[in-house]
């Protein structure tokens, strides 16, 4: 990358999340359509049949208010749904019912943790609710090309969250989205596992040049990739003194590039007017009954204060509500040890096996037992890894799961006192004169090499720290 001009990006995100209410926004059709055939979760209202009327799903307003409060927004006194009129085959009524004209929440923010523990506030300009249109599927084969429409998605409640252009890098965008996802999951209003439950449009301008909109990003990774690509593309243009057009571009997940759209959306007049079939919502009366759960930043602070764990571990543990809850279920024996072990060991082993923390809740006593064992230094860390791997594999395969104590007995993993190994250690020290000499002449890592040899010989049953001490004593004795 040329570094001729330091180009500062200004990035704003427009995020659409599907709420996980049981029913759609304006009818009682079930939102759980992903495993079913097209057009099976529909009714006159979400199909927009003549004579159909919308009925507001009250839960969605409750969810909307919760989201606004958790993102530190001011809340409007009233909520007004409007019609956004435009023609498109996925829009059954040829208008979308949306709160778009007057937001539900505004002037909020979300704080993200950058790497060096610096905190940055990303401002959120507005939040509102609207209904999802249907889904188009384009078929292109040898003889025919046509488009199919599936209205299962038509009427699903969406929350639209719009940020100010405060984001200054693709990485910040990713951090923001992760924090947003965490927060929404804390509120239990959103399932990030559901395909297509999150869509992002990004607006980016470099150094005051024209703003480019990127549409159609449907994954968290996609956002970072799309922005990175776009910054590169625009930087090259700027460095060769070319003009950046104000346009809408589409992101392609498979190739990771953005391509120019048709520019048709430059100035569409949606002829907004208030939806005459729905009454005005007295939002201010709803707000007093809304209770928020403990949100990530507050939970993180509490973990630090209550459990005396490090900010790093607190941050990781609270980045997922399920993980945070799990931690509190199992940590009592030794919160500090638990935090380190869960973050540094357990998470990695779960990820490797594509397992979620919730899958091991039923066996949480086993984890407590393992943490107890480690706390009492009954086995080495390496043995601990062997035990957890075995337990996770057994859970994943649906086999009978062994308790940690039983595994240790069966595999003879008990840490043995280092005294029983003294002879072995002495022998290894004798056989590794070169390493000793390297160590004495200041070469780093030489001693660890010898410790490693001992670990191999003792099949991991010796505690490496204790071995290290003994070897040092032996060497210093020799040199006396």
């Amino acid at each position: 990358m040329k570094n001729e001009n330091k180009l500062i990006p200004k990035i704003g995100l427009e995020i659409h999340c599907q709420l996980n209410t049981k029913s759609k926004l304006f009818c009682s059709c079930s939102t759980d359509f992903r495993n079913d055939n097209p057009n099976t979760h529909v009714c006159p209202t979400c199909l927009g049949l003549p004579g159909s009327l919308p009925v507001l799903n009250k839960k969605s307003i409750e969810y909307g208010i919760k989201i606004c409060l958790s993102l530190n927004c001011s809340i409007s006194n009233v909520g007004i749904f409007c019609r956004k009129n435009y023609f498109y085959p996925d829009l059954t009524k040829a208008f979308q019912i949306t709160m778009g004209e007057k937001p539900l929440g505004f002037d909020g923010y979300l704080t993200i943790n950058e790497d060096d523990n610096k905190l940055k506030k990303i401002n959120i300009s507005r939040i509102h609710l609207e209904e999802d249109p249907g889904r188009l599927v384009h078929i292109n084969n040898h003889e025919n090309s046509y488009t199919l429409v599936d209205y299962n998605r038509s009427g699903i409640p969406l929350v639209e969250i719009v940020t100010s252009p405060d984001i200054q890098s693709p990485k910040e965008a990713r951090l923001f989205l992760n924090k947003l996802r965490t927060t929404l999951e804390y509120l239990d209003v959103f399932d990030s596992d559901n395909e297509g439950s999150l869509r992002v449009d990004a607006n980016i301008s470099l150094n005051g040049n024209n703003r480019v909109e990127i549409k159609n990003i449907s994954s968290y990774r996609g956002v970072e990739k799309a922005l990175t690509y776009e910054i590169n593309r625009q930087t090259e243009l700027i460095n060769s003194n070319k003009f950046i057009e104000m346009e809408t571009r589409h992101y392609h997940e498979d190739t990771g590039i953005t391509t120019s759209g048709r520019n048709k959306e430059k100035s569409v007049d949606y002829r907004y007017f208030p939806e005459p079939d729905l009454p005005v919502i007295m939002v201010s009366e709803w707000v007093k009954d809304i209770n928020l759960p403990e949100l990530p930043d507050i939970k993180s602070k509490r973990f630090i204060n209550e459990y005396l764990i490090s900010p790093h571990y607190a941050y990781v543990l609270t980045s997922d509500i399920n993980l945070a809850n799990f931690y509190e279920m199992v940590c009592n024996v030794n919160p500090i040890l638990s935090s380190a072990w869960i973050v540094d060991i357990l998470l990695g082993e779960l990820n490797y096996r594509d397992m979620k923390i919730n899958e091991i809740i039923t066996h949480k006593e086993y984890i407590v037992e393992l943490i107890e064992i480690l706390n009492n230094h009954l086995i080495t860390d390496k043995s601990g890894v062997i035990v957890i791997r075995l337990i996770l594999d057994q859970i994943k395969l649906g086999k009978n799961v062994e308790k940690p104590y039983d595994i240790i007995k069966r595999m003879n993993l008990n840490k043995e006192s280092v005294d029983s190994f003294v002879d072995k250690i002495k022998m290894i020290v004798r056989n590794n004169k070169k390493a000793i000499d390297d160590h004495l002449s200041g070469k780093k890592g030489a001693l660890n090499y010898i410790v490693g040899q001992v670990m191999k010989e003792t099949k991991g049953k010796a505690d490496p720290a204790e071995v290290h001490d003994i070897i040092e004593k032996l060497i210093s004795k020799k040199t006396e």
Partner: protein
Amino acid sequence: MNLFEDEFNSFITICNLNENTKDIEKDLESGLIQNSKIAIKDNISTKDIETTCGSKILSGYIPPYDAFSVSCIKKEGGIIVGKTNMDEFGMGSTTENSAYGPTLNPHDKSRVAGGSSGGSAAAIASGVVNMALGSDTGGSIRCPASYCGIVGLKPTYGRVSRRGLIAYSNSFEQIGPMGKTVNDVEKLFEVISSYDSKDSTSYNNKYIHLSNKNKSKNKKIIGIPKEYFGEGVDSKVSSKIMNAISNIEDHEYEIIDCTIPSLKYALAAYYIICTSEASSNLSRFDGVRYGIKSELNDNWHDSYTNLRSKYFGEEVKKRILLGTFALSENYFGKYYEKAKYVCNLIKNDFSLIFKKCDFLIGPTMPTIAPKIGALSNSLDMYQTDILTVPANISGIPSISIPCGKVNGMPIGLQIMSKWNNEDEIFSLSYEIEEEIKK
């Protein structure tokens, strides 16, 4: 085989009655309208019966569900005999704008039946049925009731569910009962005025006929608005109405003159808002999911344009364009928003007036039924709504009852009252009906 001759082109669809009686509750021996034959205006959804709104674009559309008021009728033992002719999508005051031919006035076939519920009115006036459902957005029940010499009620906004009514102007319209006599209309109103939780503009105020109503001791005051007897109204019609009023004066009513100045803006406000809402409501008709099938080609935009241009009538296209214009970004404040302010003004004026009087009486229409083809200019047509739209704008209930004849043709007397006062409107209507019979 048809059970009756449709001499006046009142019907678009005539039902096979054997099919229809299937739905009726067998164990319900005495529903409120048990075995009564009912005609339903063709913009009201009827399950498994074609519903066209008087338009070619919905030809072949078979709703998969019943409108709420249709369910109510079936529950109380009513039998649906057919779907009646209407101005396309409710846009018109004569039923000449139907894609299925005009409905003729049973009193004089060279004249219109009124609109947009012309088919329902003619079906009653010609004796095919005694009761029918219509819809009233700017006078569409009361106008044909007046021209055909029958009774028609536009209920208080929100008192009858709009679920299943194919929308033209959501802020103004109501499904309403039409009938041969005031009693027919009252009965049908009782059947259909139920709270519907699936209509967010419906509220809980079911009408129940009280056989021994305690007549209030207070003298009732009838207001005669100056605007209803002005120069736009045929003098013979005015005098007929004034006669009827003076005949009941000794029934212990006080008659006062009054004026509602904001009414002069009513027609303009009405047409701006109803065309705006219509332009949005009618956007869904594209031949993809129901109705007449689109010849889809590569470009969906062209397919939509071709279909809508071909199968919407001229008046409908005109109003869609007007409404689109009124809602457009540069003009929203000047037209739509302003019209909304005017509506509030008119509502307030009615609030004030009903502190001074209990009823307002005037003619329903400025003239008798015009000859077919006479109102060829849209603006002339819109003008005839001038006495009926105020009730739609304000949401108050209004009934039209027959009030004798002028030049051999029926005219209607209109009674308006405050919100939810259908009760007293019926009382007064019975009295006037009695008087007129004498």
